[in-house]
C-alpha cells in the first residue's frame, strides 16, 4: 500500500467520512494536549520563566518522535514524501509573524490549539483567548491588503527543507535534530532543577532508555537513507480507463494500471502539438510548458509561454513545481525531438510531479504542424537526432508566428486526447494556511 492515501488527502463532501477521519485526528490531538497539562496557562507560561519546561519537552518529543517515524517510512518507501504537505518558506512574514505570536503567547498564556483544550474544559481564560483569536484572525484578513505584496513575496522559497538548505542527506539532519533535542532536554531539566527547585532523582529512569532508543532509531533512519530517484520512479503507477460502448447496454469500462516505462512504451504520455496547444484554452487544466533544451536553442525558437529549464537544472525547480502551481496544472515537457524530453519526464515522474506529459516529436513536430506556412523557417537537412530540424534567420524566441498559433484559425483541431487530469492535492489548502 502506498501512503498517504489519495482519498484522505483533502476533505470533500463527496467522501463525508473524510470529515470523520480528520475529526479523529483533531480529537486525539486535543486529548493529548489536555492530558499533558496544556489546558492550564500557568504550565505554559512557566516555560518562559524556566520553572517548568513542559512546553519544550512535549513539543520536541513530539517533533523528534514523528520525524524519526516519518523519515523512516519515507526511507523504506512506504510513504511518498512529495505528497506530504511541507509548509512553504516565507522568511520575513514567518519571522515577524513568529515574533508577534511569541508576544501573544506570553501575554495570553496559550497558543491557539492549547486554548481549545483549555476552553473545552471550562477555563474562562482559555475561552477568552479563543474569542480573541477570532478577532485577531479577522483583523489580519482586513489588513492583509495593505502589505499583501510583502506578505506573498518577501523571502519566498517555496517548499524548502533543511537538508536542501545545508546540502546534507536528510538522515543526517534527523540525527542532528535529535542530538540537539536531547541536549535541550538535558538543559531543560537542569533549568528546572535550578529555577523550579525540582528534584530530578524522582524523574523516571525510563526516559534515559527512551533517549537511547530515539538515537538508535535516528541512526537507523540515516543508514536506510532516502529512496533513490530510480526507486521512486519504478514505484509510480498510472491508472488509465478504456470505455467500450455496448449496444443496448451500459458501456464496459476497463481499468489498467501501468508503470511509467509502460506509459512511455504505449506512448500514453506523448501528446500531439494540437492537444498541447488546445490545453491552453481548456478551462479544466492549467498547462505549463517546460522547454528542456539549451538556452541557445530556446532563444532561437520556443513555443509561447514556454519556460526554459535545461535538463541538468530540472531538480532545482522540482520543489517549486510540487508546491507552487495550482493542482490542475499539466506539465508539458518539450525538447527538439523526444530523447532529452523523455529523460526530463522520467526525472519529473520520479520526483513526484503529477500530470507530466511529453510533446510528441518535440519542437520540430510543433513547427511541422503549426509552422508549415512560415516561409522564414527552412528545414535543416543536416540536423541529427534530437537536434533542431530548422534553420532560423534570427533568434526571435517566441516571436515567430507559429510560436503562438491563432486560436481562431486553429479552433477545430482533431486529436486523440491523452491528458488524464489527476488531482492529488489542493495546494492552497495544505498546512495551517
Amino acid at each position, binding site marked *: 500500500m502506498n501512503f498517504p492515501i489519495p482519498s484522505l488527502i483533502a*476533505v470533500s463532501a463527496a467522501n463525508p467520512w473524510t470529515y470523520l477521519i480528520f475529526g479523529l485526528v483533531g480529537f486525539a490531538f486535543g486529548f493529548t494536549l489536555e492530558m499533558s497539562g496544556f489546558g492550564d496557562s500557568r504550565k505554559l507560561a512557566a516555560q518562559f520563566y524556566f520553572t517548568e519546561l513542559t512546553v519544550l519537552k512535549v*513539543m520536541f518529543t513530539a517533533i523528534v*518522535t514523528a520525524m524519526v517515524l516519518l523519515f523512516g517510512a519515507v526511507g523504506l518507501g512506504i510513504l511518498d514524501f512529495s505528497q506530504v504537505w511541507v509548509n512553504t518558506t516565507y522568511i520575513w512574514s514567518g519571522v515577524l509573524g513568529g515574533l508577534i505570536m511569541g508576544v501573544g503567547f506570553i501575554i495570553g498564556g496559550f497558543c491557539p490549539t492549547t486554548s481549545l483544550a483549555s476552553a473545552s474544559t471550562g477555563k474562562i481564560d482559555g475561552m477568552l483567548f479563543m474569542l480573541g483569536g477570532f478577532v485577531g484572525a479577522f483583523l489580519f484578513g482586513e489588513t492583509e491588503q495593505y502589505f499583501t505584496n510583502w506578505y506573498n513575496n518577501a523571502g519566498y522559497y517555496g517548499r524548502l527543507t533543511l537538508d536542501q538548505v545545508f546540502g546534507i542527506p536528510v538522515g543526517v539532519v534527523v540525527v542532528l535534530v535529535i542530538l540537539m533535542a536531547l541536549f535541550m532536554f538535558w538543559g531543560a531539566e537542569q533549568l528546572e532543577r535550578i529555577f523550579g527547585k525540582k528534584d530530578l532523582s524522582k524523574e523516571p529512569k525510563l526516559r534515559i532508555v527512551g533517549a537511547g532508543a530515539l538515537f538508535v532509531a535516528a541512526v537507523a533512519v540515516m543508514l536506510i537513507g532516502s529512496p533513490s530517484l530510480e526507486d521512486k520512479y519504478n514505484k509510480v503507477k498510472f491508472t488509465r480507463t478504456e470505455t467500450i460502448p455496448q449496444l443496448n447496454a451500459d458501456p464496459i469500462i476497463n481499468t489498467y494500471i501501468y508503470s511509467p516505462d509502460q506509459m512511455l512504451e504505449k506512448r500514453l504520455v506523448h501528446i500531439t502539438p494540437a492537444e498541447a496547444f488546445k490545453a491552453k484554452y481548456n478551462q479544466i487544466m492549467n498547462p505549463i510548458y517546460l522547454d528542456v533544451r539549451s538556452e541557445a536553442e530556446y532563444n532561437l525558437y520556443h513555443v509561447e509561454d514556454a519556460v526554459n529549464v535545461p535538463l541538468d537544472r530540472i531538480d532545482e525547480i522540482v520543489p517549486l513545481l510540487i508546491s507552487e502551481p495550482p493542482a490542475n496544472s499539466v506539465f508539458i515537457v518539450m525538447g527538439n525531438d523526444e530523447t532529452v524530453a523523455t529523460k526530463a519526464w522520467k526525472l519529473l515522474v520520479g520526483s513526484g510531479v503529477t500530470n507530466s506529459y511529453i510533446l510528441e516529436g518535440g519542437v520540430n513536430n510543433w513547427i511541422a504542424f503549426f509552422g508549415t506556412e512560415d516561409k522564414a523557417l527552412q528545414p535543416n537537412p543536416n540536423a541529427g537526432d534530437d537536434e533542431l530540424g530548422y534553420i532560423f534567420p534570427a533568434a526571435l524566441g517566441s516571436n515567430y508566428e507559429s510560436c503562438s498559433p491563432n486560436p481562431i484559425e486553429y479552433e477545430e483541431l482533431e486529436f486523440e486526447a491523452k491528458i488524464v487530469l489527476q488531482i492529488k492535492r489542493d495546494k492552497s489548502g495544505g498546512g495551517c494556511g
Partner: protein
Amino acid sequence: MTTQTKRSILNRPERPYVHPYFGGMILGIILFLALLFTGNGLGSSGATSRIDALIVDTISPSHVDNNPYLLKMAGGDKNPMDDWIVPVFFGALLGGFTSGAFNGRLKFMTTKGPNITNRTRWLMAFLGGVIFLYGARMARGCTSGQALTGGTTLSAGSWLVMFAIFGGAYGLAYFVRKLWN
C-alpha cells in the same frame, strides 16, 4: 468512586497530568499517523480564519468579494468549511473536553498567576488571543501547523517560525513577569 462517576462527570477526582515525555511521544505518534495517512499534519489557526470567513460571508457576502484574502477561502461556490483543518479544530475541542472529563478536570475556573485579578487575566487572555492569531495568520500557521508539523517535515521556514515564537516570548517574558509570578 463509582457513585461519583455515576453522579456527574464534573465530580470526578482530579488526576495528575501525564509525564511530558510520554505526552510528547503520544503526540508524535498521532502526528506521524496523520502525516502517513493524509499527508497533512496538525493545526488549528487556519480553522479560526475559516470560521471568520464563514461569519463574514453570512453577514456581508459583498465584503468577501472585495477582500482578496477572504476570497481564497469564501465567495463564489467556495465553502470556507471545506478544509481538513476545520474538522481537526472541532475534533480538538471535543478531544480536550473528553480528556478533561475522564481526568476530573472539567471545572469553570481561571488559570492565572498569583498576583493578578481574574479581570486582568481575562483581559490579557483576550488580548493575547488577538495578538497570537494575528501573528499566526501572518506566519501562515501557529505552534501546531508551523512549529510542530513543519518542524517534523523539516521545513526550513517552519524552523525559523518556531525560533521566532520562542524568541518573541522569551524577549518579553521579563517585562510581563507580574502576570505570572
